[in-house]
């Protein structure tokens, strides 16, 4: 058996992708559940993505995009990621936190309005590095509709020795409705 046959594929998904699919129940989410099962994968989101999709206007708060998938076990919310953006990079030893800082810096360099809100964007990259740190037999696919973030996802994990990553960029964002809930988008086979 080759090394690639031993590897499990995890998919990290940004907020915009779930927004495109709509609230549960939706035909797109049903297609997604089926595709996740057929691709033998699971979907991960950082806590910040879960919060962005949560409706806090009801008691208790509900997440109409993610809660059903979480209850059914095919969507997983990561435990909290580093939160201290102000720590100097050279004082950090945790690769996950380092990755989030590097992603934050990279986004600041690439986009027009630096320091606005990149820390939460960077959590997608940090989660990828954490999954690599915690699982030796894993490869990761990220899904976002922000170009610079999509590039950061492919650029930064290899700095920590993790090359089994690819990053899917949805442009325009509504492309996610048809292209994301498919076995092809959730599977590793390279184009």
């Amino acid at each position: 058996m080759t090394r690639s046959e031993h590897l499990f594929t995890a998919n990290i998904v940004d907020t915009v992708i779930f927004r495109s699919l709509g609230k549960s129940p939706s035909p797109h989410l049903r297609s997604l559940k089926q595709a996740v099962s057929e691709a033998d994968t699971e979907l991960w989101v950082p806590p910040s993505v879960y919060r962005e999709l949560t409706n806090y206007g009801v008691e208790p708060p509900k997440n109409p995009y993610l809660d059903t998938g979480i209850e059914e076990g095919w969507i997983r919310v990561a435990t909290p990621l580093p939160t201290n953006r102000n720590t100097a990079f050279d004082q950090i030893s945790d690769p996950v936190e380092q990755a989030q800082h590097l992603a934050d810096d990279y986004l600041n360099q690439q986009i027009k309005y630096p320091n606005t809100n990149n820390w939460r964007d960077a959590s997608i990259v940090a989660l990828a590095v954490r999954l690599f740190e915690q699982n030796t037999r894993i490869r990761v696919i990220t899904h976002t509709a922000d170009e610079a973030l999509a590039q950061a996802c492919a650029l930064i994990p290899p700095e920590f020795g993790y090359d089994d990553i690819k990053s899917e960029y949805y442009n325009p964002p509504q492309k996610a409705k048809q292209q994301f809930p498919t076995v092809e988008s959730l599977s590793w086979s390279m184009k």
Partner: protein
Amino acid sequence: MSYDTEHVRNAGNGPAMITGLPTFTDLLTNTNLADLYTAIRQSPGVTAPELIDQVAVSKKTVYEYLHRLERAGLITETENSDGTSTYDAEEFELTLTIRGIEVTITPTLVAVIAQSDPYPVINRVCDEHGFVTFALAHDLVNAHSDGDVTIRQIATLTDLSHGTTYDLVEALYEVHDLGDDDPSLTTYTPDDMDDNELQSELTDE
């Protein structure tokens, strides 16, 4: 001879009577008026009967709106050799500056307002957050299509909720037909990336 004064630039280039100023601002709040102006702008030389077939208001309202747009100088009426009237739209910019914030109303923004029926989020943002926020969000969505901002940044810079921001992003991508025509996804891999900038960050430790 063209000349400028304190309040008028390019004066002297012929008559330029502008009356009916409320029509300019009505373009931002009256979807049907915006739709009619945009229809004329997109089809120079269009006739009134053709417009009646294109827009969602009565024949009487079309003629009333044509009169208002003409009085404001936003369209011009010309007569064909067969006696039918045709209409052309005039480009315009209406710039407002208040408390240091400058916002410019243009035909491009009016064309977006005209799409409020199929995309209710456009009216919702204008009504609940004001025109400056709408115009700002509009421009930032265009910047997003160029890769210059992320969607979270648009939400932060405009102070719109995440949900409203995502709805508006999707609507404006569709209205302006932004994004890649290729139905397949763009895939980035480590081999696609130049890591020079990151290397400098790491070696700075």
